């Protein structure tokens, strides 16, 4: 997808003035957080499981080549095919080739962030394919021609009323008198339309939450069962996934699954946890005739062993996003590319470059709430700081900031001069602003005073008063 991350500030302005978005964001702020906390509280070993999950992924990433080859071997043994894709383009081309070879017309899709990352839908449509998203949220945003605004709740930015309007506009057979006020009515309406499409599909594309090296299985978790119908009914199943999704064995996958749903939605387990292992065997009643796995790198192998390696542990639960006050303020589209919130602020610059996405790691207060809930214990603020350091080194940070920091550091490294200069400045500010107790406007501080008053300093600095107290050996007044 085309990035607008460079225009982050403009995106923010748009988001803050979007009444529907602001209404919809209230849901994130309330629901997810309470549910996660309750789910974590119900499981005494939750914190220990987080450590275990982290260790499993660290081990796997340290031996990634070994586990990926083991996985490929197993998939191949079972009649499937693994296609390695170094770039988004390679992945897209491979998928189009498979669809053409199958003479496909209709493609159904389960939710996949990797598909978003490589802009798969646009590419398939260009190739003349009819692409149908089957996850309800993805289906809604496909109708609306929008990208997802959240990695597990792609249409979280849309209100119920907007969904109703979309269905009435796009569903030709929908009688005007039918009620679509309640969520279940909307779900039923989408289900009726989608059911037909599953049977028409020639190719089903799903993502993968985990790849299991021991068995050659891919695992998806869904709450709607759409993934199962997507991968079982068509004659070809394509798994589009990325290299860091692999884990050694089923026990490891289960351990991480125990923190995944709890961190994401507060469920103990997702409604459906589905394993797919190769194409249909002779004794199987259902299943695809062909089974392909596209293994995308797209910059990930370059993160191994570096400052951003911890990010490869991410299991896309969305907890960091759900708990991020910046995300709560502006929603996902403002981030300008596929991955929003704290995980996106770290990952996006890795994938599309810090020149394009330089705002994202800066747009954080380092409040640390993301890291405190990350089931994989990924130090998100620390890695955002790494990006800021690279931006600073490469002179990508704004000149005014660099100039300001240098001036401040010049004084801060000379305590006597600092004491004298700040003492003068504070006395002056206090003399001017004491009567009100605050400033409505301050030169060079528009970013502050546009939105809030600036408190007047009390006057004599602490250092000045303390020095006087030391000299006189008495309490200051």
């Amino acid at each position, binding site marked *: 997808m085309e990035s607008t991350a460079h225009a982050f*500030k403009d995106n923010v302005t748009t988001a803050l003035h979007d009444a529907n978005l602001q209404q919809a964001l209230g849901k994130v702020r309330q629901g997810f957080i309470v549910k996660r906390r309750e789910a974590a509280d119900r499981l005494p070993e939750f914190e220990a499981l987080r450590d275990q999950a982290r260790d499993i992924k660290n081990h796997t990433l340290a031996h990634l080549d070994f586990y990926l080859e083991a996985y490929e071997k197993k998939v191949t043994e079972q009649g499937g095919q693994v296609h390695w894709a170094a770039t988004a383009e390679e992945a897209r081309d491979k998928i189009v080739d498979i669809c053409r070879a199958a003479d496909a017309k209709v493609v159904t899709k389960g939710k996949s962030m990797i598909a978003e990352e490589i802009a798969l839908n646009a590419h398939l449509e260009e190739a003349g394919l009819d692409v149908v998203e089957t996850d309800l949220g993805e289906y809604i945003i496909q109708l609306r021609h929008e990208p997802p605004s959240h990695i597990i709740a792609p249409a979280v930015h849309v209100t119920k009323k907007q969904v109703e309007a979309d269905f009435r506009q796009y569903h030709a057979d929908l009688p005007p008198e039918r009620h679509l006020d309640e969520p279940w009515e909307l779900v039923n309406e989408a289900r009726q339309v989608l059911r037909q499409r599953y049977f028409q599909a020639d190719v089903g594309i799903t993502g993968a939450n985990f790849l299991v090296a021991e068995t050659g299985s891919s695992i998806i978790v869904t709450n709607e069962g759409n993934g199962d119908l997507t991968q079982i009914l068509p004659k070809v199943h394509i798994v589009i996934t990325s290299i860091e999704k692999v884990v050694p064995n089923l026990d490891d996958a289960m351990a991480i699954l125990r923190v995944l749903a709890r961190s994401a939605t507060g469920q103990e387990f997702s409604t459906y946890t589905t394993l797919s292992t190769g194409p249909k065997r002779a004794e199987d009643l259902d299943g695809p005739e062909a089974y392909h796995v596209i293994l995308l790198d797209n910059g990930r192998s370059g993160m191994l062993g570096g400052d951003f390696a911890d990010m490869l542990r991410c299991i896309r639960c969305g907890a960091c996003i759900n708990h991020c006050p910046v995300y709560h303020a502006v929603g996902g589209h403002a981030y300008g590319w596929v991955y929003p919130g704290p995980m996106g602020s770290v990952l996006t610059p890795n994938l599309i470059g810090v020149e394009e996405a330089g705002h994202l790691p800066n747009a954080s207060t380092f409040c640390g709430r993301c890291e405190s809930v990350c089931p994989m214990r990924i130090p998100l603020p620390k890695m955002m700081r790494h990006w800021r350091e690279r931006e600073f080194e490469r002179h990508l940070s704004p000149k005014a900031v660099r100039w300001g920091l240098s001036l401040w550091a010049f004084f801060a490294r000379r305590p006597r001069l600092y004491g004298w200069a700040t003492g003068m400045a504070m006395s002056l500010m206090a003399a001017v602003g004491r009567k009100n107790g605050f400033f409505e406007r301050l030169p060079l501080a528009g970013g502050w005073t546009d939105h809030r008053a600036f408190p007047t300093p009390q006057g004599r600095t602490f250092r000045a008063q303390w020095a006087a107290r030391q000299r006189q050996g008495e309490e200051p007044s």
Partner: protein
Amino acid sequence: MTCLVDLMRPSVGFAAVELLERAGCDVEVPLSQTCCGQPAYNSGDRAHAEAIARQVIEAFAGFDYVVAPSGSCAATIKHHYPQMFADDPDLTAKAEDLAARTFELVSFLTDVCGVTAVSSDYRGSVTYHDSCSGLREMGVQNQPRQLLASLDGVDLVEMEESDVCCGFGGTFCVKYPQISNKMVSEKAKRIESTGAELLLAGDLGCLMNMAGKLKRNGSAVQARHVAEVLANRLDDPAIAQPPSSAGQGEG
């Protein structure tokens, strides 16, 4: 001494000194310190951040404890200095030694000095904001509430989402003023809906942000550093208040 307290609100510094002295500590304030370097560190300016960190490590060599009336400055010293010098074994050792001696004020009083109660003339309802670094990096949560609960005249009314960032974030609030404004506006709503007369917190940056917003909104809620109430230093006007309001809330 945090730079904001030094420059903006020295009374918080004196409140901290009083609390520490009452808890039996000998307090010294080395004047060779200026700032902990956090603004440079969080802006990606490692060279300046490290230079200032060296200065701080030097300034506080030899003291038993280093206590700051701020969770965020204390966290910079305790958690970030050792990371900063990870490539230099000698400085790492010094940074870790300093880190082990460094505490946030209120948690130092309760957890190290064993203070369980204080006395204050303040009478009224207060609400307490958990500043992010104090809460998540320094584990400050129950300690200020415990000491506030020891005050007969203080009625603590918890706000919703007291653990959610106020939108200050150091330079964040001027780099992304619109987002910061949205965040502090939400915070101001939570504060006002408690009906409390006074907002307390343990970090002056957050307090200036929230007090500035409350003032701009025309709110009557006042704001002080928690140390001012705990030390009974209430003569100075609350943050962003004119002198005439001095002593308000003293019952």
